[in-house]
């Protein structure tokens, strides 16, 4: 195995993935350090979601390697996945269970002690204490997303993957999510954020990378004012 940067949280080397005969990723590299937050932008079909799902372990690469906290992500190496939290646009909640039951189940899956207490505490922190005995279907989209984020990050993962989490969120909900993420980042979590919303990328990211047709086109620290940022990346962030 090639020597890797000892301090890196995430290391991706030569990642390849096709769907059918369409090659989405063609040998992608990526390194992320603890506390770093990277925003990935790019047009649709660039491979951003595929990249995230590969790192989350939901997809297997055709070639290449993914190491999280120095451990390779492989079939059978299931414990490595406990370092990752993934927030997608689906809530991943069961409609037949209450919010508490949903989160308690997640706690059990992650081997957390006292699953029910953990679930209640997390829902409380998310401002959902009074809705904990309700089913997801009875909540507004914004509240569902809040519950989904609480579920996804219940185990306090050092690596947080987010795929367009700000879609369909109103301003207040988006602000709340940003605050939550910032507090996690300050506790040395790392963030990989895929988004079209450049303002959110600017708020949260310390680094920005542009992915086009499965290849990096740019990868640089986030610098400058919001306006210059928007100008720089606007062309790539179009839907």
């Amino acid at each position, binding site marked *: 195995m090639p020597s890797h940067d000892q301090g890196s949280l995430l290391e991706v080397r030569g990642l390849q993935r096709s*769907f*059918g*005969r*369409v090659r989405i990723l063609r040998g992608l590299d990526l390194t992320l350090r603890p506390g770093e937050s990277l925003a990935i932008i790019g047009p649709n079909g660039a491979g951003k979601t595929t990249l995230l799902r590969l790192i989350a372990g939901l997809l297997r690469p055709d070639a290449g390697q993914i190491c999280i906290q120095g451990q390779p992500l492989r079939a059978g190496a299931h414990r490595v996945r406990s370092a990752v939290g993934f927030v997608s646009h689906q809530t991943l909640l069961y409609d037949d269970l209450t919010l508490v039951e949903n989160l308690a189940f997640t706690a059990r899956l992650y081997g957390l002690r006292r699953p029910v207490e953990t679930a209640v505490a997390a829902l409380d922190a998310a401002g959902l204490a009074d809705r904990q005995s309700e089913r997801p279907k009875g909540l507004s989209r914004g509240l569902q997303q809040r519950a989904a984020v609480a579920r996804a990050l219940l185990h306090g993962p050092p690596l947080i993957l987010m795929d367009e989490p700000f879609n369909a969120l109103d301003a207040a909900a988006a602000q709340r999510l940003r605050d939550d993420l910032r507090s996690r980042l300050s506790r040395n979590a790392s963030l990989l954020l895929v988004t079209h919303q450049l303002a959110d990328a600017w708020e949260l990211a310390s680094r920005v990378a542009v992915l086009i047709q499965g290849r990096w086109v740019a990868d640089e620290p986030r610098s400058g004012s919001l306006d210059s940022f928007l100008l720089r990346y606007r062309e790539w962030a179009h839907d």
Partner: protein
Amino acid sequence: MNSPASPADPKRIIRRGLVLSTIALLGLALVYVIALRYTPVEARQGLAQKIFYVHVPAAWCALLAFSLVGLASALYLWLRDVRLDRFAAASAEVGIAFSAVMLTTGPIWAKPIWGTWWTWDARLTLTLFLFFLFVGYLALRAALHDPAERARFSAVVGILGLLLVPFIHLSVYLFRTLHPQPIVLKPSAPSLPPEMLRTLLLSTVVFMLLYLGFVTARYGLTLAEEAREDAHDAG
């Protein structure tokens, strides 16, 4: 994975398959002639017994096709080589055809001799199951559109199906020992005269050639389809 200049030229493979199939079909005609003119007529069953020279090899080839589907499926899950998946699918399509041949010649043979169109004898029953397993396998493939998913899922069905066969065989056998039914569609017991055996062997070889030819042609067709889709996506 497959470069454009790959040696797997679909047209050549299809041609090879068709040539093989044609030879096999000629062989089949030869078998037909030999069976009718140069092989003795079976005493008890008369002329109708001659269908046995088609019926038995077809059943054998259906089982062969199915076993190869199972084997290719297991190898696919291990090696993830797409060629194994293509082969399994081709073998399944040819296998379902051979099962159908066996299942139609069976009643045609049974009716004049035993007065009944169908009997649940071991061979017919097993082939009927193979037919249904083939149908399930191909139906699942048709319902899945992502090629990798389709390959993985049908491989699982292929492996499980192959392991089902011994259980079918065993439970049907045990079932039948309790409810004896006319044992039809067997060569005249206890042993087969040499001329009949020769014709049977010849027919079996011809059928296996037919299997090979059809599978090769079908494989080539799959390659051609994939090439066409590639060109379509690119253009």
